[in-house]
């Protein structure tokens, strides 16, 4: 008896969830604005020009997939701070690299009658799903920094060209390598620190690297690939082993700037942490263009770094979204491409102020 009773009630409350759900549609208007913009100061002076109050009374959902590198962290704080300055109520979500959770959170946003969504897709595929979810709910949506897999959904897409930027960066490194070869007459031993193979960005950057290296067999030995899983510890350990196995390595590309400290900690004891031009210098390049990379280029340890123009991307995202909301568009569709660029020791003086990493104040 007791058991049956239990089963029934359970079954009931399960179906209840469904039943209520199936009513669907209009939700209760959201009340009491609990602002969660937070940590405005941590933006680190990455000031985006937004028209103050331009989003007054609006609720904007900001969903990011992770904050594990300087790039994402800076981007997140910059955007949510800018949004708050624009007078919007910001709802932050971190999907913690889980596309499924991201979707759930976006739906939670929609539930709260958000006026607009800015999200950093976990990857192209999930971007599609999120966008279509937003479209069906008639909420304008911005996909930040990662492109949706296809054009099926309507969204403002602000993206950098990872593969292209990586290519540009490595191409410069190759020119440096050519000079060195001309001087020494010895082939160089290149090494690439690959990101997490489950992350499309990592794969793109890897492809960009090999695009640039293609057709330079006269110049290089076979590239050594080091797995990092986007994890500093793994990166450091595997690089250490790789360097022991191949002491001759003199050309290193890292798929993300955040790994420079690990690179330094491995190279310096080997006497390979030298500034450009100095004897024993390892040709170094990376991608992101964060604050540390900026510093290392000013001190000439790093030869070149691929920059995604965070300032540009963030500014565009917000302005485009604001415009759409003002115009009352529920499904704006537009693609803004951040060409990005390679900041090299050659073009430092002219271009460094376009690199966000050189603009924000260094993290303490």
């Amino acid at each position, binding site marked *: 008896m007791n058991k049956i009773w239990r089963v029934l009630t359970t079954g009931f409350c399960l179906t209840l969830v469904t039943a209520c759900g199936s009513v669907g549609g209009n939700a209760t208007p959201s009340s009491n604005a609990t602002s969660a913009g937070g940590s405005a100061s941590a933006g680190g002076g990455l000031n985006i020009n937004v028209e103050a109050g331009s989003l007054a009374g609006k609720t904007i959902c900001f969903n990011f997939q992770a*904050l*594990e590198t300087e790039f994402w*962290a800076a981007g997140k704080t910059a955007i949510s701070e800018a949004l708050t300055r624009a007078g919007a109520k910001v709802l932050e979500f971190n999907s913690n690299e889980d596309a499924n959770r991201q979707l759930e959170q976006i739906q939670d946003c929609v539930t709260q009658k958000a006026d607009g969504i800015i999200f950093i897709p976990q990857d192209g595929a999930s971007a599609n799903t999120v966008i279509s979810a937003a479209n069906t709910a008639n909420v304008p949506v911005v996909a930040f920094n990662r492109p949706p897999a296809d054009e099926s959904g309507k969204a403002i897409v602000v993206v950098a060209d990872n593969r292209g930027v990586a290519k540009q960066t490595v191409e410069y490194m190759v020119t440096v390598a050519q000079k060195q070869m001309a001087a020494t007459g010895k082939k160089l031993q290149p090494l690439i620190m690959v990101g997490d193979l489950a992350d499309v960005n990592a794969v793109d950057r890897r492809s960009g690297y090999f695009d640039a290296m293609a057709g330079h067999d006269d110049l290089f030995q076979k590239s050594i690939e080091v*797995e990092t899983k986007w994890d*500093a510890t793994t990166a450091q350990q595997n690089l250490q*082993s790789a360097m022991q196995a191949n002491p001759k390595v003199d050309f290193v590309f890292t798929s993300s700037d955040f790994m420079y400290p690990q690179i330094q*900690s491995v190279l310096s004891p080997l006497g390979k942490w030298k500034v450009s031009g100095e004897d024993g210098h390892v040709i170094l390049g990376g991608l992101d263009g964060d604050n540390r990379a900026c510093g290392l280029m000013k001190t000439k340890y790093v030869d070149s770094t691929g920059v995604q123009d965070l300032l540009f991307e963030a500014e565009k995202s917000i302005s485009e979204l604001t415009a759409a909301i003002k115009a009352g568009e529920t499904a704006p569709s537009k693609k803004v491409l951040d060409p990005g660029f390679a900041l090299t020791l050659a073009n430092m003086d002219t271009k460094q102020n376009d690199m966000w990493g050189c603009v924000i104040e260094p993290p*303490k």
Partner: protein
Amino acid sequence: MAGTRFTRDQLTLVALKNMPIVLLVTVFVAFSLLDHRFFDAQTLVNIARQASYVGILAVGMTFVLLTAGIDLSVGAVAYLSAVLVSELLKETPLPLFALPVLMAGIGLLAGLVNGALISFARITPFIVTLAAMGLYRGYALGESQSREANFPAGITDLGNLGIFGVPLPIVIFALVVIVAQVVLSKTAYGRQLYAVGQDPEAATRAGIPTRRIIVSVYVIGGVLAGLAAFVSVIQMGTIVPSFGTGDEFDAIAAAVLGGASLFGGRGTVFPGTVAGTLLVQMIAVGMVFTQVDLYLTPMISAAVIFAAVLLDTARTRQLAKISKRSIRVEIPVPV
């Protein structure tokens, strides 16, 4: 005839008891054959240096596993201690030696909370430490605003600092191992720990302070997590927000590979856990040397670990068989 079989069993026993080391050597030889560069003292140094962080975690985990508990929060505790100390460094400069002390101290507090909840509130260790994981990491991420936690530039020099040519991380790891093993085998506390893990009720009846012992293992786990964080900091210079995630599993795997049982009462720090840790790390390093396609690397290492567990199982069974047999032989009593 019984006599002769018994002695032969004794021999097999010795061989089987040292299985972890046998395994370690086999893998080392295997990789050396695949890639001659691998056969090098420096390789071993690197392996040991790289294993030191997880190794220290695993030593703590061994204590916990010995009481049939589990600590999923060590990774989070390591991150927490690193972040808080780096925050502190922003305010006030600290002498270097203070860093490990502070980190261990933070770990101690965290472990104390876990231990108290498990031992006195009697909540399942799995859930307590699972929740604690979210608690500590969440709080730490809040502190760091999920930015990198930075340390004074010179700190990595410590990581490369050699004491009689032995890198500091290895020295710390070795010290931890020695102390832990001595505690386990040469102190009453250590022996009682095994008793508690085998059968808490019987232990209490025998007058062993079961509860205090259970609290203590989580405290030890916490302290070592803090220390591990320090070892990692001096090698890496900075601590990224993802630091420590999932490391609890590496630690458990290392301990279990080393022969620790998840049901308590069995396991050693040396050779057991140490061998387990080194084995995993050796495989990782071997992969880098042999430059296997990055997509295949994790599959191969998984396969190797699986094989190791398989061997270990066979060994435990063999041991059981032998002991069983020795029961059946009625030992004549010389008078």
